[in-house]
C-alpha cells in the first residue's frame, strides 16, 4: 500500500480521489445556493443551517477539509517535483499539441485557493467563530446566511471577482474531471468519450450555475 501513497502514480490517485470528492461537494453547494434564486431566503437559511449543524454532515465536513487539504498539499508537492524534473528549461516554448487547460492547472489552482480562503473567511468562519458580526437569527438556531450572501453580491467588484474565479474553476474542472478517470486507469473506447462529455457538462454547470446566482442577485431589485 505504501506504493499507492508515496509513488508518483499514488500521489496522482490521491489527488484525483480528493478532487472528485470536492467536485461532488461543489454540486451540493451549488444546489443549496440555487435555493436563493429559485426559492426564498428562509428555505436557503434552513438548508444552510442544516449543512452547518447536522451531526452526519459534521463528519462529512471533516472529510471535506481533509480532501481540500490533501488536494492542495499533494498538488504543491507534485508541482515542485515537476519543476525539479526539468532544472534547465527550453528557450523556445513548447509547441506540441496538448489539451489547453491541462497546462494551466497550477495557475487556476492558485486563483481558486485564494478565492477559497476569502470565501471561507467571508462565510464559513464568520458564521462559526464571529457570531458578533452576524445579523440576527431568522428563527431560533437558524442563522441569517442569506443576508450576508446578498449583501456580498450587491457589490460589483465582488461579483466580478466571483465570476472570474468561477470561470477559472471551470477551466480547472474541464481538465480535472476526465483526467481523474484516466489516473484511475479508466480508459475505454465506448465510455471514455462519455466521461469526457460529462466532464464538460459538469464544468459548464458549475460555471454557469454559480455565475447565474451572482448575476441574478446583483441585477434583480427583488433582493
Amino acid at each position, binding site marked *: 500500500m505504501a506504493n499507492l501513497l508515496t509513488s508518483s502514480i499514488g500521489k496522482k490517485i490521491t489527488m484525483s480521489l480528493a478532487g472528485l470528492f470536492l467536485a461532488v461537494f461543489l454540486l451540493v453547494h451549488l444546489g443549496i445556493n440555487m435555493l436563493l434564486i429559485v426559492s426564498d431566503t428562509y428555505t436557503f437559511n434552513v438548508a444552510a443551517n442544516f449543512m452547518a449543524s447536522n451531526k452526519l454532515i459534521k463528519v462529512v465536513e471533516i472529510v471535506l477539509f481533509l480532501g481540500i487539504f490533501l488536494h492542495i498539499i499533494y498538488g504543491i508537492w507534485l508541482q515542485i517535483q515537476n519543476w525539479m524534473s526539468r532544472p534547465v528549461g527550453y528557450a523556445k516554448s513548447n509547441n506540441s499539441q496538448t489539451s489547453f487547460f491541462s497546462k494551466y492547472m497550477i495557475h487556476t489552482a492558485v486563483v481558486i485557493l485564494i478565492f477559497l480562503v476569502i470565501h471561507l473567511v467571508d462565510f464559513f468562519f464568520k458564521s462559526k467563530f464571529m457570531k458578533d458580526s452576524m445579523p440576527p437569527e431568522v428563527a431560533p438556531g437558524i442563522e441569517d446566511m442569506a443576508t450576508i450572501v446578498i449583501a456580498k453580491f450587491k457589490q460589483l467588484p465582488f461579483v466580478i471577482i466571483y465570476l472570474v474565479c468561477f470561470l477559472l474553476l471551470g477551466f480547472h474542472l474541464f481538465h480535472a474531471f476526465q483526467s481523474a478517470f484516466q489516473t484511475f*486507469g479508466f480508459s475505454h473506447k465506448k465510455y471514455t468519450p462519455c466521461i469526457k462529455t460529462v466532464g464538460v457538462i459538469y464544468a459548464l454547470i458549475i460555471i454557469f450555475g454559480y455565475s447565474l446566482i451572482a448575476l441574478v442577485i446583483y441585477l434583480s431589485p427583488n433582493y
Partner: protein
Amino acid sequence: MDFTLKIWRQENAKAKGRFETYKISNISSDCSFLEMLDQLNETLVDKIEIPICFDHDCREGICGMCSLYINGRPHGPDDDITTCQLHMRKFKDGDTITIEPWRAKAFPVIKDLMVDRNALDKIIQAGGYVSISTGGVPDANSIPVSKKNSDLAMDAAQCIGCGACVATCKNASAMLFVAAKVSHLALLPQGKVEAKERVLRMVRKMDELGFGNCTNTGACEAECPKSITLTNIARLNREFIFAGILSEDKY
C-alpha cells in the same frame, strides 16, 4: 533554401552552454534535417572549428537515437516522425530554426545537443522483461494469444525509446515510455505472470531517477514518433493500482 540556425553549444556536461547562430545556404528542400546539420558540420570542419555534436544512427526512424528539440517540438514540426525523417521542405526559406537538446533532470547534456538517456535503460532493467533465460521454453504455439491483445501489445511495443515523450512533457515525465513497456508485457500471457512486480518496480525506478509526474496533458502522445497512445498510461495506472493493493511485497 537558406536558414538561420540558433544551436545550443555546450562543451561538456559541466560547462555552461550558450546559443550560437549559424547561417546556412543552398540547402535542398529534399534534404533531411540531419543532412542539413551534416552540411553545416562540414563547413565548420573546413574552418577548423569543432563540429556540432548530436546523436543519430539509423536515419530511418527506428533506432531512437536521434533527438533534438526543434522550434519548440521534439523531432521538429511534423507528426509521427523522428528528426532523421524530418525534411527541410517542412520549413520556409529564410526561417530561423532554434535547436536545443532535450531537457530533463534525468537526461543530462553530454555535449552540445547530445544527452544521456541511460535512465530509460535503467527503467527497463528494473523490470521491463519476462524473467526467463535461454532455453527450456514451451512451443511457440502452446499458448494462444487473442489477436486483439497481440495487436495492442504490438502497438505499445513499437516504442523506440527516443525519449521525445519526456522531452515534450511539461513535467519531464517518462510515463508514456513506462506505460508502453508495461502495456506490451501485461497484454500478453507470457508477461502477465510477473505483471504486478514489474509495474511496481518500473514505476519506483522511474520515480527514483527524477522524472516528473503525469498530468494527462497529452503532449507525449502528440509527439510520439510511433503514435503510442495515452490509453497505455491508463493501463499502466490500472496495473499499478491493482498491483499496489494486491501485492504483499514492498518495492
